[in-house]
C-alpha cells in the first residue's frame, strides 16, 4: 500500500481546490446566415492535449502558441459543429489571439461561419477535452435573437437552440414576421388572392363586368374576402400546427393549386358571382392546412404556442391586407379603362389559371414541368 495514498485519505476532508477546473468559454452569435464568435480554451488544457510548450521550460510563450496555431485550430475545430436543421453550417477560425480569464491565459479562437439559410434553430455539438478530462465543461453564451446560455458536459454534448428562446414579445415579433413573410413569398397564396381580387373593383352583371361606382363597397367586399379567407385558414392552420389534424402534404398542395385554378377560371367563366367570401372561406380551409407546413417546420416554442400561433396568423392577415391596400386603389382608379378589364382581368386570370394548372399537375402527379417556386 502506497504511503501517500494514506495521506491522501487522511487529508481527504481537507481537500481544497486551489485552481479552477477546466472550462472553455464559447461565445456564438447567429445573425441571419452568419455565425461569428470567440472560443477561449485554456492554454494549460491545450498544453496537456497537444503540447505547446515546445522547449519544455514550463513557460508557454506567445511565440510557442503562434507556432502551434494550426494544431490548436485543428484540435479545437474537431470538437465543435453547428447544424441548422439537417445541414451543417461552415465554421472556421479566422484568427488566434489571447484572452485573460480569472485563472490565467486562454487561447482565443475567433470564429466565423455560415449556414445555407438563416436558421430558426441550430444544434451545437461540443466535444472538446472530454476524453482527457471528464470534468471539463464548455460554457456557451449564444446570441441567437436573444441571449441563451448552456453548459456542455460529457453527458450533454449536443444541445438544440431555437431562435429567440426568450421573451414573449420577441416570440410574438418573430412569428408575426414569419407569417408576413410566408404570404409575401408564397406565390400560390398571392395568386389565389390576386385571382379573387382582380375583379373586386368591378361588379359582375348579366352583361359582364362593370366598374363599381364607389371605392367604399369595393374595399368592404375585398376586406370580407380576405378576412373570411384568413379566419378559415387560421382555423385549419392552428389545428394542423397543434397536431390535431394531419393531412398528406401532396393532397393539400394539389388542392391549393386547384383553388388557384378555380379563382382564375371563375373570373373568365363566372361560376360564382356573389358571396365570394363564402368561397374564400372554404378555400381558406385548404390554404390553412398548407401554410401549417411552414409553421411545423419552424416549430412552436413550448410554453408560447398560443402566442406564436396568434402572431403567425396576424402576420398572414397583415400581409394579405397590405397587398389589398396596395393593389386595390390602383385598380379602382383604372376601373373604367377597357384595358384594365380586358388585359388585366382577362389576361391576368388566364395567366393565373395557367400557372395554377401547371402547379396542380406537378403536385398531384409529381411531374416536374417548370421551376417556379410556390
Amino acid at each position, binding site marked *: 500500500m502506497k504511503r*501517500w495514498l494514506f495521506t491522501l485519505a487522511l487529508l481527504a476532508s481537507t481537500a*481544497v481546490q*486551489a485552481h479552477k477546473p477546466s472550462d472553455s468559454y464559447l461565445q456564438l452569435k447567429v445573425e441571419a446566415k452568419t455565425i461569428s464568435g470567440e472560443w477561449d480554451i485554456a492554454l494549460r488544457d491545450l498544453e496537456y492535449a497537444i503540447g505547446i510548450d515546445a522547449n519544455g521550460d514550463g513557460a508557454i510563450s506567445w511565440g510557442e502558441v503562434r507556432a502551434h496555431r494550426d494544431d490548436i485550430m485543428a484540435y479545437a475545430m474537431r470538437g465543435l459543429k453547428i447544424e441548422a436543421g439537417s445541414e451543417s453550417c461552415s465554421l472556421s477560425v479566422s484568427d488566434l489571439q489571447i484572452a485573460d480569464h480569472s485563472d490565467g491565459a486562454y487561447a482565443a479562437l475567433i470564429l466565423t461561419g455560415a449556414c445555407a439559410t438563416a436558421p430558426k434553430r441550430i444544434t451545437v455539438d461540443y466535444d472538446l477535452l472530454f*476524453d482527457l478530462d471528464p*470534468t471539463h465543461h464548455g460554457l456557451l453564451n449564444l446570441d441567437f435573437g436573444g441571449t441563451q446560455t448552456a453548459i456542455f458536459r460529457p453527458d450533454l454534448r449536443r444541445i438544440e437552440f431555437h431562435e429567440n428562446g426568450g421573451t414573449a414579445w420577441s416570440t410574438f415579433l418573430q412569428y408575426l414576421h414569419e407569417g408576413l413573410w410566408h404570404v409575401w413569398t408564397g406565390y400560390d397564396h398571392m395568386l389565389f388572392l390576386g385571382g379573387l381580387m382582380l375583379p373586386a373593383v368591378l361588379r359582375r352583371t348579366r352583361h359582364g363586368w362593370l366598374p363599381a361606382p364607389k371605392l367604399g363597397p369595393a374595399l368592404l367586399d375585398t376586406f370580407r374576402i380576405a378576412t373570411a379567407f384568413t379566419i378559415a385558414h387560421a382555423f385549419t392552420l392552428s389545428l394542423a400546427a397543434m397536431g390535431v389534424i394531419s393531412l398528406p402534404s401532396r393532397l393539400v398542395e394539389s388542392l391549393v393549386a386547384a383553388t388557384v385554378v378555380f379563382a382564375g377560371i371563375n373570373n373568365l367563366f363566372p361560376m360564382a358571382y356573389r358571396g365570394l367570401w363564402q368561397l374564400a372561406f372554404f378555400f381558406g380551409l385548404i390554404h390553412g392546412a398548407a401554410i401549417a407546413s411552414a409553421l411545423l417546420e419552424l416549430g412552436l416554442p413550448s410554453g408560447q404556442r398560443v402566442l406564436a400561433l396568434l402572431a403567425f396568423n396576424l402576420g398572414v392577415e397583415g400581409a394579405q391586407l397590405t397587398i389589398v391596400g396596395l393593389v386595390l386603389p390602383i385598380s379602382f382608379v383604372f376601373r373604367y379603362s377597357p384595358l384594365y378589364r380586358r388585359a388585366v382581368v382577362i389576361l391576368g386570370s388566364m395567366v393565373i389559371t395557367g400557372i395554377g394548372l401547371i402547379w396542380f399537375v406537378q403536385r398531384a402527379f409529381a411531374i416536374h414541368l417548370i421551376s417556379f417556386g410556390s
Partner: protein
Amino acid sequence: MRPIHSAFISIGLIFSFNAYSAPYVPQSDAEILARVPTRLDPEARALAALRQQLGKAPQNLDTAVSYAEEALKIGHARSDPRYYGYAEAALAPWWATDEAPQRVLVLRATIHQFFHAFDAARTDLDRALARNPGDSQARLIRATVLQVQGHPDKALADCEQLGAQVEALISTTCASSASSLMGRAKRADALLGFVLDQSKPNATDARLWAETLRAEIAERLGQTTDAQAAYRRALATMDSLGVTDAYLLAAWADFSIRHRQNNAVIERLKGLTDIDNLLLRLTLAEHAASGHNETFVQHKNMLDARFAAARQRGDAVHLREEAMYQLHLNSNPPSALRLAQQNWKTQHEPIDALVLVEAAQATHQTDAATPVQEWMHETGIEDERLNAALGAVK
C-alpha cells in the same frame, strides 16, 4: 454583487461571462502567457510516461490505476482539480459500473469526495468495504467522508477498525479527530499529544495532520494560547516538509484573524493568491486590518471573479467560502445565509456550522441556527466559537 443578480444566478437561468476581457495579440513572441510543469519535473515525467503507456493499452487495469494514482498524487499536492479529471479519464472503462475492480472503487471514491460528491463516495466505499472489510485505505477515506458529513460516531467506528494495519499515528489521529467532535475533545488531545511524543520527531504528513488537529481542538476548547502554540508547531512541520497545506493555512488564518493578528496572515498568504481559500483569508485579513487599499480591492475583485466562474460552471464546491465572502466582505447577509444553508446540506464540519450561525445572526433569523443546535446536541461537540455565536443569535 446585488441581491437581484445573485438571485438570478442561483436559479441558474442567466449567467454572463465573468471577468471577460477582449482578446488581444501579445506584444512579442517572448511574452510568457502561462506556467506549466517543466519537462524536467519528475512528477510530470512520471505521469507523461504512464500516459504514453496507457495510450497504447487503455483497457489495461494496472496501467490505468497507476496513472490515476500518479495523477491524484499530483492533484492532491497542487490542489488542482484537473488532475482529478485526468484520473477519472484513465478510469473511464470502469467508471460507470458498480462492479468496478476494488482499486477503481477506492480511487473513484477519492475523486468523488474531492468534488464534494460525498454520497457517491460513500456508495463506492460501502461497496468496497463489503467486498473487503480489511481494505484500510477505503476505511480511512470513509471515516473522513463520514466526519465531513457530520457523523463522527460512524467515523470513529471506522477508525477503530483500522487496527494494526496502519501506523499508530494515523489510526490515532483518525480516531481523535472523530472523538474530539463527540464531547471528548480533551481526551482526544491528550491521546494525540502522547502518540506524537512516542512517534519519531521527523516531519511527516501524518505528523502534520496530527498537529493541525491539536491546534483545532485547542481552538474549539477556547484555549487560545495552546492553540497558538499548536498552530505554530504545525506550520513549522509544514515548512520543513516543503509543502503548502491549504487546509492548515486556512484554519490558522481564521484563528489569527479572530485574534486580530491580521498582519501575520497577510505576510504569510500574500504570495498564495492562486489558492481560492487562501485568497479569501488574505482578503479578510486586509479587510480587518482596515486597509481598504488598492491591494484589497484587487483581491476582492479576484475573489468575485473566481466565485462567478465557479457558479457559471454550476459547481457547489465553494459554498462555504462564498458564504464567508458574502458575510464578511460583500455586506450581503441574506446571500450568505442562503449559501451557508445550502452548504450545510452536504457538509457538517465545525466551520460549516459557524458560518451558518453567523449568517443567521447577521440576518436576525434565529430559526436558521436551529439545525446547528440540534447537530451540536446530537454529537456533543464542544466549540467555544459556536457557543459564542449561538449566544449572539438569541
